[in-house]
């Protein structure tokens, strides 16, 4: 890596761009992209037919789906962001990357996180919070890599040779700052062991923080950096200035000023207070304006260049990406409106919306900027334009199939759930009826996914051939006059140079303060003051606690929700409407975001242990037509009781009222409860040594769900009625 030769030939400085690290990120993004899409296609087929789980523990849907989401977001899109940002930032700032070593270190750290994280997910180490499933060591590593990324952006800016900071760079800066804060706030967790930790927040609090992170990870990881890339690559590819630079400035700053609260639109009709839900709804709808401002600005930049869109694959991808961005950001606010949300929540419509954003906007954008960047930095021309167009059409058709099938499936299932006949009875009382009905849609979606994967493979081949024919050339050297103000004196000491970087210094200081204050502030606030009041809920017994961890390990929350919403059909189908108090000890909260299987909030005591046992070994034996994978290894794997006492101690430190002796004889307590369950199971022919297996722990947890509420209603502490219980 030739460092930048800053030869002071009068004012005119010579420098060259560090495109090597960009090349690495591009290749990494393509590699992981393939893995993510492959996982996506597999889980699509697993939903169409359960046989595609192949009965293997580490390939079942529960663990593969988190791998797909994390790989797609952080590996495929993440690497592409780093490539696009480093490429465009250097050219916009007319300066070499601040520190190439740091960039490369960040690259290898990021790939390590992906590989290690992916493996840990398959092995069942999940944190239980959607899009943040990686355990605490990876969280720390992600934070480090992300800060390195930020320092590189701001450092390059500090050495820039172009006075004006183009709007795209502002988007990159805001991405760095907000994602850093989001990730840190959502990853405050207390480790129990190397690969297990409990979040500090519980129940409703955890839900709000999770979806404040969840939505803004979408907003500030999948959208703001891509808006920045749009403002750079679309004008470059169309050779037209952006439609209205003034509009892009207004668009950016209005987005940044209002650091939004759109998160709660994932929690409408949950036990979140009414006013928080209203705020979430109002501001999600308000978000529609800046998003469409960005889309209009992007599309109108192509005025007068639309004929080129027909010929040039780069423009074809970019234009379609911006259109899908517009569509997704119209569909989103629509779905945030409470009445629409009541139909859409927990159904496949949400999955359709997610993929119109991720594939329509991100995948297409990535393809566009790669086809733009690769010929330039490898100094060659694109191998085949026809192949790129072919990829475009397969991906678009695949995506349309995906979206259409998910809309149909989502709305069908939503309507079937809520259908009441004139006598007030459920038209489809058996949940499985609503599942079987939409399986054909899963097949259509799966083939859509295959098309997208094939399109991606065309790109891989196309890029491979493009790079192959690249002519080796020594690194181009550019020259530009230095900005008199920002020129670092060559001899200044490192600290003075660091101090001379006002922006970088303030950012790092701010982050340090933020992390510091959070770590002290949060535990105190969440644990004592707010949990002391008396509640009818009893904390989880040791066995139930282990059972809950098995529930999280297998990713049951990916298909099952634990939240009964206040509407007649859910009251009839599931039982008492969920109360905020119920989730007071849930660390992490497991409300879930999709009902592929029925809601489990009231499953405690509904079926006997044997039913659950048979259901785990072979779900179809109990509910014919079920698409639930087989979990027979639960019968053979022992539950981990060694860390049980440590888990109880951590929970106690977070305010769960476990007494001292409960913690001391936790293991005996768990064994006793397990033995009770094992005895009942053995009456119907199950061998007794099931007693120390994960199956028993899981059954103990499942039987606890909703049990306290039923008891409370019997004792009259809670009045149960359709509209909601208090």
């Amino acid at each position, binding site marked *: 890596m030739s460092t930048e030769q800053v030869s002071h030939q*009068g004012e005119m400085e010579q420098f060259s761009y560090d495109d090597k690290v960009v090349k690495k990120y591009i290749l990494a993004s393509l590699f992981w992209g393939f893995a993510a899409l492959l996982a996506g296609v597999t889980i699509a087929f697993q939903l169409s037919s359960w046989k595609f789980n192949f009965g293997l523990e580490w390939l079942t849907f529960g663990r593969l789906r988190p791998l797909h989401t994390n790989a797609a977001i952080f590996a495929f899109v993440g690497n592409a962001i780093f490539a696009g940002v480093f490429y465009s930032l250097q050219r916009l700032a007319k300066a070499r990357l601040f520190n190439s070593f740091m960039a490369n270190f960040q690259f290898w750290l990021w790939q390590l996180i992906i590989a290690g994280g992916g493996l840990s997910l398959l092995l069942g180490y999940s944190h239980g919070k959607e899009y943040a499933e990686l355990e605490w060591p990876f969280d720390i590593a992600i934070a480090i890599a992300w800060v390195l990324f930020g320092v590189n952006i701001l450092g390059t800016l500090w050495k820039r040779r172009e006075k004006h900071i183009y709007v795209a760079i502002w988007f990159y800066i805001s991405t760095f700052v907000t994602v850093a804060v989001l990730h840190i706030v959502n990853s405050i967790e207390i480790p129990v062991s190397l690969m297990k930790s409990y979040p500090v927040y519980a129940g409703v609090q955890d839900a709000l923080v999770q979806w404040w992170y969840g939505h803004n990870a979408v907003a500030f990881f999948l959208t703001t950096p891509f808006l920045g890339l749009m403002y750079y690559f679309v004008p470059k590819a169309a050779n037209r200035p952006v439609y209205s630079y003034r509009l892009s400035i207004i668009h950016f700053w209005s987005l940044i000023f*209002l650091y939004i609260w759109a998160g709660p639109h994932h929690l409408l009709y949950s036990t979140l207070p009414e*006013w928080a839900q209203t705020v979430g709804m109002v501001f999600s709808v308000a978000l529609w304006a800046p998003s469409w401002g960005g889309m209009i600005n992007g599309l109108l930049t192509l005025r007068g260049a639309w004929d080129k869109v027909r010929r040039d694959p780069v423009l074809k991808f970019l234009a379609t990406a911006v259109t899908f961005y517009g569509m997704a950001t119209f569909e989103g606010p629509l779905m945030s409106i409470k009445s629409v949300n009541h139909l859409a929540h927990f159904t496949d419509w949400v999955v359709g919306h997610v993929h119109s954003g991720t594939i329509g906007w991100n995948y297409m954008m990535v393809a566009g900027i790669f086809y733009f960047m690769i010929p330039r930095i490898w100094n060659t021309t694109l191998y085949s334009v026809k192949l790129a167009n072919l990829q475009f059409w397969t991906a678009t058709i695949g995506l349309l199939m995906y979206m259409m099938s998910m809309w149909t499936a989502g709305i069908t299932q939503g309507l079937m759930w809520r259908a009441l006949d004139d006598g007030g009875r459920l038209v489809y009382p058996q949940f499985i009826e609503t599942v079987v009905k939409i399986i054909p849609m899963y097949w259509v979606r799966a083939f859509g996914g295959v098309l997208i994967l094939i399109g991606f493979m065309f790109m891989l081949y196309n890029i491979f051939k493009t790079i192959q024919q690249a002519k080796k050339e020594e690194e181009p050297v550019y*020259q530009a006059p230095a900005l008199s103000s920002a020129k670092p004196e060559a001899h200044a000491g490192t600290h003075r140079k660091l101090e001379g970087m006002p922006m970088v210094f303030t950012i790092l200081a701010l982050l340090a303060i933020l992390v510091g204050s959070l770590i002290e502030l949060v535990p105190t606030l969440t644990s004592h003051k707010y949990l002391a009041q008396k509640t009818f809920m009893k904390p989880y017994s040791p066995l139930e606690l282990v059972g809950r961890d098995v529930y999280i390990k297998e990713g049951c929350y990916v298909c099952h929700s634990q939240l009964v919403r206040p509407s007649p059909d859910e009251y009839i189908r599931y039982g008492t409407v969920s109360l905020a108090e119920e989730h007071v000890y849930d660390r992490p909260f497991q409300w879930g975001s999709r009902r592929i299987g029925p809601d489990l909030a009231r499953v405690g005591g509904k079926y006997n242990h044997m039913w659950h046992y048979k259901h785990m070994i072979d779900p179809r034996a109990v509910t014919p037509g079920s698409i639930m994978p087989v979990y027979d290894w639960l019968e053979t794997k022992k539950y981990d009781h060694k860390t049980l006492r440590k888990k109880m101690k951590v929970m106690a430190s977070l305010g769960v009222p476990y007494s001292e002796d409960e913690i001391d004889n936790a293991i005996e307590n768990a064994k006793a409860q397990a033995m009770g369950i094992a005895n009942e199971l053995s009456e119907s022919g199950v061998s007794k040594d099931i007693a120390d297996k994960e199956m028993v722990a899981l059954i103990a947890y499942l039987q606890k769900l909703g049990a306290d509420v039923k008891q409370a209603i019997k004792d009259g502490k809670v009045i149960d009625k359709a509209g909601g219980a208090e």
Partner: protein
Amino acid sequence: MERDNHTYVTESSLACSHCGEKVISEFKNLDDNLHVFCCSGCRAVFNILSSKGLSEYYELKQKGPTFRARSPIKEVQESYRYMDSKEFEEEFANYDSTTKTKSVRFYLEGIHCLACLWLLEKLPEINRDVKSSRLDLSSSVFHVTVDEKSYLSNIAREIAELGYPPHPLSSNADLDALETKENRKDLSRIGVSAFCAMNIMLYSVSLYGGASGAFASKFGWTTFFLSLPVMLYSAIPFYKNAWSTLKKGIPSIDQPVALALIVGTIAGFIELLQGKNETYFDSLSVLVFLLLFSRYILKKAQKKGLDSSLAGSFFGNSQTRRWNPDKGTFEEIYSRFLKKSDLIKVMPGEIFPADGVMTKGETYADLSLLSGESTPQQLNVNQNVFSGTTNLTNPVEMKVDFTSHETRLGKILEKIQTDRSEKSPLLTTVDKFSHKFIISLFILSAIVLAINWILLGASTAISRTLSLIIVTCPCALALATPLALSRSLNLAAKAGIIIKSFDVIERIVRAKKIFFDKTGTLTYGTLSIDTWEDLTKIDVPTKEIIFSLEKQSKHPVGVSIYSQLKEEGTNELPVTDFFEHAGLGVSGTINGQTYQIKKLDQNFKQENLNTVGLFRNDDLLTIIGLKDSLRPEARDLIGKIRKMNKSPYIVSGDNDENVSRIGSELGVNRENLYSNYSPEEKHQLVSSSEDLIMIGDGANDAMALQKSDVGIAVSGSVEVSLRAADVYITTPGIKSISNLMELSSETIKLIKRNLIISIFYNLIGATAASMGFITPLTAAILMPISSLTVLYSTIYGTGWLRRWIKTTEVTL
């Protein structure tokens, strides 16, 4: 380059390889002659670019966007050496000792596309002395930083060679520095108010959504603390404006706004103290943000309208050759640094920079700037010369007596300046109306406050009065008039009609009498061929002889004859030993025969035409009658003026018969004609009557234009007429005057419509607010809606405006 062999091809479909314009007369490139150019200027730039390896310019130009029609490139004559003098650098360059550089700002002509930006910002690579160069496309201002020791003149010449003649902008133009500082302050205020308003809305929506108990009070206090920066920082302009107008006792629209802000904040604070949550911070901060934002947009729109007019007035030649006694040669200095009793040399085609006495040579000068008559006057040794007049034929020398504002022209301009300040801007009808409205608003809100306080208690009283004040805040009223006016100003500027200030439009509509100056306004002002009489037949067609002879003549008559014959496409014959003697005509030999064109004396005059004759060794061949003919569009302009029941008058320095001839042709009745009027007499005539418009030549009718209610300058130099007249028409002829009339009456119609909308809105708003139907927040949202409706009605405009915009493809 040796003599260039340009061949004359009449109409060719080729496009100039530099600027892309259609090539009329083909200039072939010398070395590879496959490039064709429309003029030598383009060819020069093309050669420079290719010699410096910058031919990527053309690749970029063809691909990149162009966003303004380009102006033709003039051959580089100025040497800009005047920029090297000490005084020039003091005033125009500012030094930076740390980097040992100096920076200058130029206004560049001909900036029109991405390639210009690329080329000019590549200057540091072409010229080693240049440290950095930055171009602002919207204002065509080019900021160059160069090494301390380098000469500004060769930087300026280099830029001119690239096809962008530079005009220096004085570096300490505090007007510009002030403007950017003002703009930044506005932006910061808007930014802060936007942030606070949005976040206050966030917490207010939670309160509306039902947050209660501990959360409610916490959110209440958060909104209070968030509203402080808005009330204490962003809203400063409102308090300042309200206070200054209050001191002068004139009501202004900022007073109710300031009142609402103060009352609302205090009331909200008291509510919070009592633990209740009936606060108004959301509506007040939204009000401040929307007001600041709409005023910012309005100011930008207005500035764009006026800007495009003033940018053009930087031209005029800025260098003179002064005799340097010790060096013994003429050296070039910046004309503003001339001092008394300097000896200067004025070349043909240049303007006399100062008053003084001729010391050597004799020439023809165009005194139209002062006397108003276009026919050139003869000047010979120790005759008085006045600044502003143009030297036509030969180089002469003169001794300087008076410079800058002591000259005759300077005195006129100074007089105009003082006149201008007397005629303070009339209070238009709207301002008067809005004052009455504001006073009545105060009274009404006092009454509403009192009644509600007694009947329904303090908090409802306050909230109703607040919403009353906010909803009836006369923003629509205040916005209606300036918006319509600034839009019309903007449209006019785009169509080449530069209107100096708002109230001009209203005064045009009110004017009853319209005075026309004859020469140059109603007529072309230059003599054009009227009759052509060949007395004796000779072998060579007389048209070609005259055409070839007049080609090199600098005399205005010769030039107009040549241009008319050129349009007819007469071909040229080679002329040898051509000679032009001032005032007597031209002579030259064509294939052996010597010909002469001379002014004929009185007796050949047929009904008052001036005539010119072609002689071959003094026997008369042809007589050409020349006439100052009427502009074709003059007749229907007069017709239109009569339709608007305004009466046309003609006043001119010309003699009676000419004036009456033109008067009868246009059908203006006898008693409205005034002839033999000197500029001073015109001034008297105009100031005697009320409500009148004077249309004339910017220079010589300057005083009359200034005195009349509305002065419209049709021709004359930009600088002089812009100072004197209220309106300056850049397009030739008087066609756009009818557009101006139409535009003014339509704008007033538009203003009336906007006023009706805003009054109607205010009436409903006031009643609804005082009866408590709308809360302060809905009021704060309703108010911008009213401004938006007014904005939309202005943009929608009237039928005629829309048609006019389509015809002149004028964009907002």
